[in-house]
């Protein structure tokens, strides 16, 4: 069997970028949460805020560390597997990605150390300022990355001469048509991720009766945030979809599973797209609703996948189902946020077991929503890498063989499996140890510059220590 370097490179890129994406999407949201906690601590001097901030800063340190490690690989992928793309787009993407590195550099250099290690060493105001700057820095970083990605979706401000893109307008290229929508959509996704993780972990602690006062506050804050952000994301997602309809109609057609351009298109709840015959099997849908959502008219025209030749179509099934999973999780998020509001009556939100159990499981939901969302936008762009201008096949490294691509694909999977299972395992340890005060010997000898050293948690479970503090006296009959 001939190994296809194109499909292997696509799988490799999807793998490393998916793995990478889950870390920053969490740290961006979490950084803002920590900044808010620091602000509250600064203003009210209530020790609960300090306690929460100190704990979530530990988590931030570990996740940030994993994001940096997986990010290093990303900056070399363009050259190793997509060198024609790198060469062609360097005039725009080179400076943009460099600015992202520079931002991260600056952030790391100046403020992260102060946030992680400076609580007792710098004035409270300076520490708060560092927290705000770290949060701002994560947004600036994502600004550049999403600008680069959006330009690949809706290229503007550049012209293609002899196979190379030249920038004609930096502002048009950076603020290309899909960028504002994608940036806003991702920003809210980060808040949702941060919110649901903090809420879920707090719910878990509440189930076990640990640090009830602090975790109650954390859960309450998150539920308020989610109550506004989760519905807002749905509205924003709709705007993003309309923008996509304008610039990438085929992607929208794939999302809707609509093959022929037509009116009164139903919103499909279920279907098995059959790309070979350009049709769906086992369709279940709500009549005319897709037309209404996309055009705001019941008989509006919705583009079809078949409008473009088969070789210019994305794999419809992946886009179609990823979109449904993302939207489904989004609706679930809204449901939980509203349930939280209802349960506030009588202060039941932090004592209702089934709700806390549900929130606990919802803590991983945003990651699936984010990944499937990216599958929609990235797979939906296929076969284009730079939409309408450069295909994935043209972008591939010419000297790359299937064997080489397979070697590194397996290699990255093995490396990531080892490294990130250690990382996630350690993160679980940090969560398990929790907010409670630790022995002094755990926190001696801090030195800045190494994110994990902010975490003060031993790698192995030590049965002689007091790791299990609080677990002996659960208030609720909670899960483990």
């Amino acid at each position, binding site marked *: 069997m001939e190994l296809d370097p194109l499909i292997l490179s696509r799988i490799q890129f999807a793998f490393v970028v998916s793995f990478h994406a889950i870390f920053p999407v969490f740290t961006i949201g979490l950084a803002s949460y920590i900044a808010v906690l620091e602000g509250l601590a600064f203003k009210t001097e209530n020790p609960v805020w300090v306690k929460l901030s100190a704990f979530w800063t530990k988590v931030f340190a570990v996740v940030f*560390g994993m994001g*940096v*490690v997986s990010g*290093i690989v990303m*900056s*070399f992928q*363009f*050259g*190793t597997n997509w*060198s*024609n793309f*790198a*060469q062609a787009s*360097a*005039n725009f*993407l*080179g*400076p943009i*990605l*460099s*600015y992202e*590195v*520079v931002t991260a*550099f*600056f952030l*790391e*250099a*100046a403020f992260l150390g102060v946030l992680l290690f400076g609580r007792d060493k710098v004035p409270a105001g300076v520490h708060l300022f560092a927290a705000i700057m770290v949060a701002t820095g994560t947004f600036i970083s994502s600004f550049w990355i999403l600008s680069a990605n959006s330009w690949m979706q809706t290229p503007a401000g550049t012209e293609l001469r002899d196979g190379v893109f*030249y*920038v004609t307008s*930096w502002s048009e290229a950076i603020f290309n048509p899909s960028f504002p929508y994608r940036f806003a959509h991702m920003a809210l996704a980060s808040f949702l991720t941060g919110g649901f993780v903090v809420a879920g972990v707090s719910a878990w602690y509440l189930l076990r009766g640990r640090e009830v006062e602090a975790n109650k506050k954390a859960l309450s804050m998150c539920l308020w945030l989610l109550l506004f952000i989760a519905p807002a994301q749905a509205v924003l997602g709709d705007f993003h979809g309309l923008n996509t309809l304008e610039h990438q109609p085929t992607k929208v057609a794939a999302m809707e599973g609509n093959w022929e351009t037509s009116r009164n298109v139903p919103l499909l709840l279920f279907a098995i797209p059959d790309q070979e015959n350009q049709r769906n099997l086992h369709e279940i849908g709500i009549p005319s609703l897709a037309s209404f959502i996309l055009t705001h008219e019941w008989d509006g025209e919705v583009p079809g996948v078949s409008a473009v030749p088969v070789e210019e179509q994305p794999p419809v099934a992946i886009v179609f189902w990823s979109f449904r999973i993302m939207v489904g999780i989004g609706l679930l998020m809204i449901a939980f946020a509203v349930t939280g509001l209802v349960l506030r009556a009588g202060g039941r939100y932090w004592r209702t077991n089934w709700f806390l159990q549900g929130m606990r499981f919802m803590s991983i939901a945003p990651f699936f929503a984010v990944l499937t969302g990216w599958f929609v936008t990235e797979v939906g762009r296929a076969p284009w890498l730079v939409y309408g201008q450069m295909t994935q096949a043209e972008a591939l*490294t*010419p*000297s*790359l063989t299937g*064997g*080489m691509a397979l070697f*590194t694909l397996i*290699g*990255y999977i093995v*490396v990531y499996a080892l*490294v990130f299972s*250690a*990382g996630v395992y*350690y993160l679980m340890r940090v969560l398990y140890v929790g907010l409670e005060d630790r022995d002094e*010997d755990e926190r*001696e*000898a801090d*030195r*800045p*510059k*190494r*994110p*994990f*050293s902010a*975490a003060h948690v*031993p*790698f*192995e479970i*030590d049965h002689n220590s007091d790791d299990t503090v609080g677990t002996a006296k659960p208030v609720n009959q909670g899960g483990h």
Partner: protein
Amino acid sequence: MELFDLPLIWAFIIGFGIIMYVLMDGFDLGVGILFPFAPNEEARDTMMNSVAPVWDGNETWLVLGGAGLLAAFPMVYSIFLPALYIGVFLLLAGLIFRGVAFEFRFKARTSRYLWNWAFAGGSTVASFAQGAVVGAYIQGFETANGVYVGGALDWLTPFTVLTGLGMLAGYALLGSTWLIMKTEGNLQQWAYKITLPLLLAVLVVFGIIGVWTPFVDEMVRERWFSNLSIIWVLPVLTLLCAIQIYRSVRDRKDGMPFVATMGLFITTYLGLVVSRWPYVVPPEYTLWEAASAYESQLFLLLGLLFVIPIVLVYTAWTYWVFRGKVRAGEGYH
């Protein structure tokens, strides 16, 4: 119309970034290479502590170098990375393993030996891969129309294996002289003891590379032997540095062995640069041919002129904060 020779400015910036990276990540990779040979576990704690506060700052130069190369010399980026495909993977995998080993070794108790191996193995693989990259650069690349057309393992030749070993020996020397400067007692004595054999190894391997290089390529031969040029100053300086390392180790000096080793690296690096100047993708393309568009180089330069001084000041400050000897039992547990 173009006010400055931006490609030349960028060549200096990236050249500066490379030597900064080699010197700074070099010693902490070197400490990793020496790790399995350390006298005992306590010595390993101290060794790791001596580089722990600075290593990831050192490595960010590599990331900036990668991104800067894409922005300023996309042709270099899009030829080197495909040509060195397998080597780049080994380099990244090595750096990832040693990076997480830093984080987890201090947290680990029973699994500590695993992280020792991850640290040592990762450092060794990454160092060898970097040396092989240098060798591959001297060898040159098979290209057509600005695109790499060679095979997956063209970079792996006896010559690049030798440069890989040279880099291992060189980084180990940087590591041992760093330990002389930063530690005391038994560990420092051990570092003194291994420095001279390492120096000998470096001189032998660098010597073979030096004699071999002119035969790898016509142009390099011409540059060094066509007429007796000023560039012969560089190998002479390299030798002087080597002598200085020898004497300062013999006299049990603290800081001089490390400084002289940095001198040895800088002069060797400059010797390498003049051998190929101004070709950045030998044997075909000069730095002007490999450059990106003028406005792209300018757009990024404006930002970097602002950021690089800040990074340098911050780097200097970090080293200042952590100056002096690292004592056993100090630092992490």
